[in-house]
């Protein structure tokens, strides 16, 4: 029996639609029919549960998690940190946060990436962590470089880190991208511009956070992640029994 009700309906005006002509790959990969809206059942309210045993504490340190002993990744050393919250502003504890990114030169460690920027032998490019009781997470990494991609002839992705989050229910499952304050490529990017709402775009831009830097070591960017909130069971909108 659920202790709370359904998730709030997703605000589709803040998410990109499936078909976005200027992001060309979406054209043949976008359903033409509307998705059918489901009120949540137990299948959507629940989702996978992860524990601290599932991962290694080192997994959150991209500076070192693929580096030779005594070495570290090349690039601008940063801390990416923040909280996972729900739309009711409550922390989401014990949830898995996974990231992946290009290296400081804009190159991914992936067989499909043939960009001429070099691979960094000490940088893998992925990390994961589980939020603490306050929903807090952090990663240590390098700031990724911008990179070119085939959309228009001269398309460049702004520096970004891909982020994947679970929450407590499968209906909260989300993948997005973190951008960095002040990057002039953000406003030019067809993938960023799939999002139809400027306020929503702004919510993907991490801010320089001088209070969280480690002096003489790393600068910090703060990025809070918000997942769908759930109805309370105070009134007659309960999942069961009505």
């Amino acid at each position, binding site marked *: 029996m659920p202790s709370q009700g359904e998730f709030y309906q997703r605000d589709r005006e803040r998410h990109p639609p499936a078909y976005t002509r200027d992001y060309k790959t979406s054209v043949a990969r976008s359903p033409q029919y509307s998705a059918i809206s489901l009120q949540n059942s137990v299948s959507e309210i629940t989702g996978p549960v992860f524990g601290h045993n599932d991962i290694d504490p080192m997994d959150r340190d991209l500076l070192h998690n693929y580096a030779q002993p005594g070495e570290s990744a090349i690039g601008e050393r940063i801390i990416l940190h923040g909280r996972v919250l729900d739309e009711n502003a409550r922390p989401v504890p014990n949830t898995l946060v*996974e990231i992946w990114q290009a290296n400081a030169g804009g190159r991914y460690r992936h067989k499909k990436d043939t960009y001429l920027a070099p691979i960094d032998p000490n940088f893998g490019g992925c990390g994961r962590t589980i939020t603490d009781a306050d929903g807090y997470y952090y990663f240590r990494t390098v700031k990724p470089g911008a990179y070119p991609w085939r959309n228009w002839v001269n398309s460049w992705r702004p520096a970004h880190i891909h982020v994947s989050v679970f929450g407590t229910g499968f209906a909260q499952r989300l993948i997005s991208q973190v951008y960095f304050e002040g990057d002039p490529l953000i406003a030019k990017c067809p993938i960023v511009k799939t999002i139809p709402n400027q306020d929503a775009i702004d919510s993907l831009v991490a801010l320089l956070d001088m209070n969280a830097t480690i002096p003489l070591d790393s600068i910090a960017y703060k990025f809070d992640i918000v997942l769908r909130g759930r109805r309370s069971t105070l009134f007659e909108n309960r999942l069961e029994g009505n």
Partner: protein
Amino acid sequence: MAQSLNYLKETPSQTAGPYVHIGLAPGAAGFDIYTQELGWDIAGPNAKGERIRVEGLVIDGTGSPIKDVMLEAWQANAAGVYAHPEGGGDVEEGFRGWGRVITDFATGEWGFDTVKPGRTPGRNVGTQAPHINLWIVARGINLGLNTRVYFEDEAEANAADPVLNLIEWERRRATLIAKRTERDGTPVYRFEIRIQGEDETVFFDI
């Protein structure tokens, strides 16, 4: 001015992009970074019920298989219980009910081994037919797509399923029914996902 409701707004989605594998399935993408990768074993060794395989292709609007997809599965065990505090009870030791797979870079085929889920409670009353919830992301998919795998040999349960019955066009319900075959004595359910075009798979806004 009025008061503020003070709700936060959900973080907007962005495509998982072409390199989703290195983040979420690095071993499958060809590099070893984690000692334990998540999502390879959905049911675990102790799960009761029928051992099955589910496999298929993800096909784009031109009729071509998409070869850079990641799919996640979320399902109940054979007793219809999800491995979650609100999942309806206890599950077998090691049963997580969640997994992820990527499509083969050359062929676009995906597949996973699991146990066939049982019926689960309906939203208000009744039961839902056995099903596996899928979430599909890839380059070119701006917001992950949710769908459900139902089973051909559960015709009676499928006919009473509240979600299948919500689909106004009866013809489209067939896009969610996996076809049962057998290979080396193991039931294999074939489930093609057509992202766009003729016989487009039904996707859900959950």
